[in-house]
């Protein structure tokens, strides 16, 4: 979102520039504004169940003085409201504890890598076409299997514009748009119902693969019909790409420099040590345009960059924002995150990716004598503790016997610790799936996991 490109958003940039220009001596100010719109179409039984068309905008202002930080936001860009937000942020400064590391990002000379975030074709896509492709997805899914019903078929798109400016010299604006379709399925057999889902993403609707999404959503649900609760035992798990993406998402907080410096990561004293199987190289690379969360700037307006976090199993670095970098005597790695105008920057991985192997999922399954292919996990937020490392989630999937997919299983958990799972990775698939997530999917095989069922 370079302000030198045609992507810049002059009117938003002008708003943040005006706010920053009001800074008094000894005061640092950051203003962040965003404006966006969304369309959501949901189809059920051949009819539009809902059609949402909406716009929103807002501003967040951070003021820092004598090491104290104050913040305020409002979901409007009215001039009166902006003045009130600035006054509130200034007022809030008095209540923070002085923190020698408090401060805004400063330009660090790292160049942005230009990417394309705006698609004119998507911006011009007609409403009627959005509705008809949502109906088409429902129809294709129903056609896959007579046992399948569709709970909902969805089309979603959004566009957004942001601008940020600081008294320290950050000045960026940009815009982007995106779209995806998703479908949720139910498969019935007598009294039993199982569920499935799938989605397809693209720069524009032209890139959607509706038949593939329909096939996956139908297969996920029907495959589980007749599933039984498996016995409890130690086994090998084969994680579907979607599950791997969720697993990497959990790991993200352990690689966060702020968590490390505050004693909330079990990796704190492990830099330079082997923390994962030597096959593992993990990068965070938002400069890869294939990543769904690709970006050219981070949440503070610094250039996004490619960072190698784990290389051949060895922990190389943590991701940093300007604040966590000051705390730890390092430099920002361009990993400030921001949840919109209503929040202040945090730290996080932006686009995680495991260096892929070469085998397909089918080949990986063939290599497993006795295991379980995990298609879905449930309760990552309730049974995984990234501070202690305890890992326990509900799961469903298919048993693997002698390299072949066997009966479906459900209502069991898989458990280990995050520390052990990284060391117990035995194979990595080549089946990269650019999912709509902060972590890319691929098939991952992990040994010595406890399955709890009967």
């Amino acid at each position, binding site marked *: 979102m370079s302000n030198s490109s045609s992507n810049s958003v002059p009117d938003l940039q002008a708003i943040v520039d005006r706010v920053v220009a009001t800074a008094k001596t000894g005061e640092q100010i950051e203003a962040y504004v965003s404006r966006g719109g969304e369309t959501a179409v949901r189809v059920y039984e051949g009819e539009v169940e*809902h059609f949402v068309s909406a716009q929103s905008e807002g501003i967040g202002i951070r003021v820092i003085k004598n090491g104290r930080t104050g913040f305020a936001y409002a979901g409007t860009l009215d001039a009166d409201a902006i003045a009130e937000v600035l006054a509130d942020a200034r007022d809030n400064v008095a209540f923070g*504890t002085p923190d020698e590391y408090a401060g805004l990002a400063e330009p660090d000379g790292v160049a942005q890598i230009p990417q394309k975030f705006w698609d004119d074709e998507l911006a011009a896509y007609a409403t009627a076409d959005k509705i008809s492709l949502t109906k088409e997805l429902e129809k294709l899914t129903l056609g896959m299997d007579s046992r399948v019903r569709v709970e909902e078929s969805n089309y979603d798109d959004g566009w957004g514009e942001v601008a940020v400016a600081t008294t320290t010299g950050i000045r960026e604006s940009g815009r982007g748009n995106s779209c995806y379709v998703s479908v949720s399925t139910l498969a019935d057999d007598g009294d039993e119902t199982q*569920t499935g889902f799938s989605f397809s993403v693209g720069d524009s609707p032209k890139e959607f693969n509706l038949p593939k999404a329909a096939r996956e959503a139908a297969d996920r649900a029907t495959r589980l019909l007749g599933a039984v609760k498996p016995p409890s035992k130690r086994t090998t798990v084969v994680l579907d790409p979607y599950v791997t993406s969720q697993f990497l998402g959990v790991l993200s907080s352990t690689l966060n420099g702020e968590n490390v410096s505050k*004693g909330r990561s079990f990796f704190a004293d492990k830099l330079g040590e082997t923390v994962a199987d030597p096959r593992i190289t993990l990068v965070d690379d938002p400069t890869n345009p294939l990543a769904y969360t690709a970006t050219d700037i981070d949440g503070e307006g610094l250039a996004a960059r490619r960072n190698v976090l784990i290389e051949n199993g060895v922990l190389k670095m943590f991701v940093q924002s300007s604040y966590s970098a000051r705390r730890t005597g390092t430099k920002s790695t361009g990993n400030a995150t921001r949840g919109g105008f209503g929040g202040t920057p945090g730290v996080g991985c932006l686009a995680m990716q495991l260096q892929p192997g070469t085998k397909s999922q089918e080949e990986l399954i063939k290599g497993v004598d006795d295991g379980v292919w995990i298609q879905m996990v*449930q309760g990552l937020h309730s049974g995984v503790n990234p501070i202690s490392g305890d890992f326990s989630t509900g799961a469903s999937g298919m048993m693997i016997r002698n390299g072949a997919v066997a009966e479906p299983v459900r209502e069991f*958990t898989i458990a280990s610790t995050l520390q052990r799972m990284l060391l117990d990775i035995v194979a990595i698939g080549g089946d990269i799936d650019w999912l709509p997530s902060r972590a890319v999917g691929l098939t991952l095989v992990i040994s010595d996991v406890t399955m709890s069922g009967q």
Partner: protein
Amino acid sequence: MTINAPVSTQANLIEADVIAKVLAKGRSTGAEFSEIYIEDKRSTSAGLDDGKVEQVTSGRDRGAGIRVVAGETTGFAHTSDLSERGLLAAAEAAAAAARQGDGGVHKIALQPLLRHPVNNVRIAPSDVPKASKVALLERANAAARSIDGAIVQVSAGYGDSYKRILVANSDGVFSADDQVRTLFRVSVVATGDAGMQTGYDSLGHTIGFELFDENDVEEMAIRAAKQAIVKLQARPAPSGSLPVVIKQGSGGVLFHEACGHGLEADLVGKGASVYRGKMGELVASPLVTLIDDGTMSGEWGAIGIDDEGHPSQRNVLIENGILTDYMWDFLRARKENRRQSGNGRRQSYADLPMVRMTNTFVTNGTENPDDIVRATEHGVYVAKLGGGSVDTASGDFVFGMVEAYLIENGEITEPLRESNLIGNGPQVLKDIDLLGNDFAMGNPGMCGKDGQGVPVGDGQPTLRVKAMTIGGTAA
């Protein structure tokens, strides 16, 4: 009938005649129903971490969502522009989304404005100096750290919100509510020979700053700290099926997941609930009476009206094990010719309402809670549950235990590390074989559904589930 009086004696939401025009515009393409939801929310939050008050945040969210229903299709638009022009433009967009056509001119007759307050707020958080809010954080921090040198990190958060809503629709509904919420949370990290462990506690009610007259943040912080310290000695949780005793007020999330979501009429209506077609049948142990009650004064999920303008109410969902009702919103009630039950809720003006829980709880049984533990030869005692989730169609659900102990020979013994428990809703409900007489509400919760979060409460007496699968690693 036309209402000329301002909507609220407190200035600045929208005039009634503007609302009537907006609702009429919503029906201008032939839709049979239009609705406007207006929200003005102010919030204050403050966070402490690593010994420092990081910042105080002031927030303002204000806007309107306009919903138009034509047949089976809902059109929706929202705007943060509350001028008459902005609202009419949103109504036009919603109407166009619902149907293309000519519906002619409609006159909207609003009933007199109704308010259904469920709480008295004694001390409005907006009247309390920010310094007093920040002081709570510092007290909690000091208390948690005073317990033991093994406590290496503390974070604490304070939050309050004052949300004014106004809902009107083309059927004449015209309702308003002022919703105040005050919340405090503390989490700690302890470190020992076997690595790090965490402790957590939270407190939230739909009341004002008097919350802290009745509750001591230092006690809360100490509870969280002790939880982390105890867990330093924890052994891996068992793997496999065992009896599970859940402490009073700590496990309402079990019912929220095992059956609450499955009793939401939108999921039932799409055949995505394991409880579809089960009305009048025995779906739980006869010990179980399950209620969802938005009127419980002061509780975290309490609301005067739901976000469709319907007064909150007490709904008996399961009575002595028999399924007596689902929860309803406007659309589902209309489709199935039922009455709304006060369960139509939304995260904000930018979201469509859907069927949601409020305060969901199981009423008292007769057992002494100590006897329930004593009657358990070998099992798990859960003193605090974390979050959970459910697949309503299959009924499979999980929830996490964040503080748990082994039960050996009828006594609570060693602490266990965190893990998920998994079960199937209808089976677990039938497997509840002992129910205590010590009902308590639990911690404030945030329930997520279809991308929207709403505040919910839960509660239950101490109870036992005959068998559940514990997802640990120990043989």
